[in-house]
């Protein structure tokens, strides 16, 4: 918000963002276009774009004169791209959900935010049309941290709707922050897929010359059109270079860096494939679901949102669990230390989590144990404290990532209330989230 005097003056002069003005202050005068107020700027500053392209902030006071020179709606116009359909080429649908990949500068908030129409989006990546016929649809426009349980179901249904049309594959544009949650959730909700669904994000917004979006999209499109892979996977940069991307298993990945292009890494797993910037594909996975356009997807969008994640730390108090029990939570993933420990001091029962966990399990809550080490599997035998924890009725989540265990627990609780069935489903590998072997090359 502008300061009161500045706002009053702008209203009086009918000056809005995008208008051309002349601002006279003392001996100096500046001609330029008024830019929208940015949140981080001072309230008494009017921001204008000078003719030389620079923005400067001018301190407003009662002696500053603002003169409107003209109205121009120069903002917010982007090139668009008309579709042409080539029957010889495969067809890919790009579904947008928002996020950095569909972002550009937003002058209202002063940051990057989703703003492209699909036509504008395609116009930015014309090279994609060389690989396939590209269709594009926006199904929602949110930052990935705002994803919720109704939206997971919505995305799954939209994918099913399109994939039934006999497409060669779907690219799902998604914000990166919670992309690994969505990838896992969609793997559970959409089983037996006839064609690939590749989640693609970007760590640098598409309005930058250095955006990673172009390569991530091109690699996803090449992977869809040149391989027989089906199912859900993720396509992101392999390293900081634009040399190629990795196709990553949807249930065994994690965002491991706040800002790097290669933030997504496989956890207790190998990549599915490597796609070069030249379009060459190196398949790494040996067993995977093969593409078959005649197959029908098994769609199951049931999920229980009353599931939480609790991280263990040395002085974590077990009373934390009371909150969840009181608020009707039906499932908890405890991200334990090391092999899956929780504080279990025999000397000081008040500090031990074991009685509290036993109580919530008895009350009907499902508790799954994962590890905050990220890599490696949990274990319920090696130490006494692990065996004591096992005895409370928790389920050790094998080598599932916390995110996969969390989404799986939501999914399982959405489908059954029977404790035996819950345990059976949790420990059955549905979409590659549990593996029995961990290889040397998988870490770090």
């Amino acid at each position, binding site marked *: 918000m502008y300061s009161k005097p500045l706002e009053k003056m702008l209203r009086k002069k009918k000056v809005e963002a995008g208008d051309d003005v002349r601002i006279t202050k003392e001996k100096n005068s500046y001609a330029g276009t008024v830019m929208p107020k940015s949140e981080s700027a001072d309230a008494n500053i009017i921001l204008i774009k000078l003719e030389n392209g620079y923005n*400067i902030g*001018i301190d407003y006071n009662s002696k500053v004169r603002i003169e409107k020179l003209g109205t121009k709606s120069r903002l917010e116009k982007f090139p668009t791209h008309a579709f042409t359909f080539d029957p010889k080429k495969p067809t890919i649908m790009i579904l947008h959900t928002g996020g950095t990949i569909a972002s550009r500068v937003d002058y209202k908030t002063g940051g990057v935010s989703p703003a492209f129409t699909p036509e504008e989006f395609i116009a930015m990546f014309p090279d994609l049309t060389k690989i396939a016929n590209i269709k594009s649809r926006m199904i929602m426009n949110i930052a990935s941290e705002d994803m919720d349980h109704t939206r997971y179901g919505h995305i799954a249904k939209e994918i099913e709707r399109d994939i039934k049309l006999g497409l060669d594959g779907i690219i799902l544009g998604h914000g990166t922050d919670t992309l690994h949650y969505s990838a896992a959730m969609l793997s559970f909700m959409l089983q037996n897929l006839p064609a690939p669904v590749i989640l693609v994000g970007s760590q640098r917004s598409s309005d930058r010359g250095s955006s990673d979006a172009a390569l991530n999209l091109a690699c996803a499109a090449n992977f869809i059109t040149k391989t027989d892979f089906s199912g859900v996977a993720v396509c992101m940069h392999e390293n900081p270079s634009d040399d190629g991307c990795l196709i990553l298993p949807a249930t065994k990945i994690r965002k491991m860096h706040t800002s790097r292009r290669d933030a997504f890494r496989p956890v207790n797993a190998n990549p599915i494939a490597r796609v070069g910037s030249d379009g060459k594909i190196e398949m790494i996975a040996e067993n995977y679901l093969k593409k078959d356009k005649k197959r029908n997807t098994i769609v199951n969008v049931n999920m229980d949102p009353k599931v939480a994640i609790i991280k263990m730390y040395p002085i974590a108090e077990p009373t934390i669990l009371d909150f969840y029990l009181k608020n009707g939570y039906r499932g908890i993933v405890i991200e334990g230390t090391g092999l899956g420990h929780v504080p279990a001091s025999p000397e000081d029962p008040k500090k031990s989590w074991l009685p509290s966990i036993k109580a919530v399990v008895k009350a009907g809550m499902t508790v799954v144990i994962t590890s905050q080490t990220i890599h490696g599997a949990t274990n319920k035998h090696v130490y006494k404290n692990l065996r004591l924890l096992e005895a409370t009725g928790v389920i050790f989540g094998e080598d599932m990532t916390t995110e996969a265990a969390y989404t799986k627990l939501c999914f399982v609780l959405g489908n059954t209330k029977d404790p035996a069935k819950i345990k059976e489903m949790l420990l059955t590998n549905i979409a590659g989230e549990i593996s029995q072997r961990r290889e040397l090359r998988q870490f770090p």
Partner: protein
Amino acid sequence: MTVNIDYQKIGLKYGVEIHQRLATTRKLFCACPARISTEQPIGTINRKLRAVAGELGLIDMAAAYEFIRNRMFTYQIFKNETCLVDIDEEPPHPIDPEAVKTVLELALLMKADIPGEIHVMRKTVIDGSNTSGFQRTAIVGLNGVLSYANKKVFIPVIAVEEESAGIVANDGDNVTYRLDRLGIPLVEISTGLLQGLTPKDAVEIAYHIGMLVRSTGKVLRGLGTIRQDVNVSIDGGNRVEIKGVQTLDLIEKAIEYEAQRQLALKEVKDELKSRGCKLELFEKPQDVTHIFADSKSKFIKKILAENNKIYGFNLAKFGGLLKKDLCPGKTFGKELSEYAVAQGVGGITHTDEDLTNYQMDAEMDRVKAFLGHELEDCTVIVAGQGEKVVRACNAVLERCKTALFEIPREVRAANEDGTTKFSRPLPGSSRLYPETDIPPFRITKNLIEETRKHIPETWDKKLGRFVKMGLTKELSDQIIRSEYLNDFENIIKNTGVSAKFAASVLMSTMTELRREGVKVEKVNEEKMLEIFKLLEAKKIGKEAVNEVLKGVSKYPMQTVDETISKLGLKTISKEELRAIIRDVVQKNINVIKKDKKSAVKKLMGTVMKHVRGKIDGKVVNQILIEEVKKSHAVGPP
């Protein structure tokens, strides 16, 4: 070709732009040290850059042009001077306040207008010199004035910018850059469009901007730390930006040649018009590879062996024009060739040049026939890899189409001889958009007042002050530009030694010693001042300065006092001198008897052997005369 140009008459206009690296602790937008690494890179990464629309929805022409070239960029990573910000893997940190304050100082020195808030902008540059695809830049001052010798030059913009990455290699498809340089703060000072001046005046303006920038004492020195650009136009011409003029003197030549170039291009335009050349006469390039199948030309054989293509096109009504000189050593044909080279081919071959050396006259005749060449036309061929050849042909064709109407607005790179070569179209203001990752920097009244208190003396004023001390203008200038400026100011301020003597030691003696291989850089400011204090107190003689400096350089771990004691360079008193002289006189009494007149001259040398550097020679001479006289007076016993 016009050589004596009346610059007023042709309406010469130019602007001068100076970029100077600042000596800050850290880079402008990250915590890396702002310096060039002395080590080898520890690794590389590869990137591509894309053209994107700016905030007004327009794709900048210069950016679009780069994108078409489709080049891969390799970036060298340095252990200490490259971090994730430099490789665009982490958002930039807030702008370095030290750099902003230095530029603010300069802006205030030029009495510029200071905005209430500094907003960092992204300037699209996708030639790879910035990993992010843009250079970050911000205006710190507007509407300043450069004043010198009663002249005033308008300085519309004073900006702080990040330095680009340094180019290491360019093989056409792949360009290698080093990332230690990227992000070092720069100050950019540009004059407005100046009229009614000669090219020589630009040299003076650039010189004075350089002086001003150095007065802050907060700029880096050495090769490449300052860069000069000029933009030039004439009436009926267009704005052309010449980047990277290496030396001050070359600025004059670069402007002269550019004026000549634009005049000649105007003549080309007029000639084409009078010949009736028009857009409809242009044709698409055609594949003429087949015509060269049996070529004897080594060049062509190589092209065909590599499975490359040869394309040709006819430039209707252009016959003879490609031979025309634009400026010394540069024909229009050579200039067109640069547009092709920029697309990754070797150049162009055309019928306006002597083709006998290439051994391809016969084939060219067939190409001409194939393309329907007429007498007034010029036929051009381009050879190279398929896609690039087509791009190169189109680039040359577009340039020729423009020649009918105007001189293209473009960025040209300065060569060492003052000529220039095409580098890219001139970017417009649509290549600037806000850097939203960085919060605005508020310039408060307090900050301005605080900075104003520390504004340095300008070099013009300094020069005047030194001249008043009795130094020549040349010597004053030399000191100001030298690394000993601080030493000189220290000595003048803290001792009573004459300015002339101090200047001669710092400028001449130090230079001589360095040439002899003495490590004079070991004499730091503190020690230098100490030496001059000892000189003032007559604890060492002026004659000994040379030896003292050598000694101090040789024993950097010792104090000046320890060194001069060790080397026996401490002065002696007149009494001690008299004792030494008496001894010499005694021993040489026969010489004195024999040759009364020249005895002093002869003995002076012997005495000096004992006391050189320890006492003033004049005193030695005077006491020697006295003692020699005494020896007569007393006479032999």
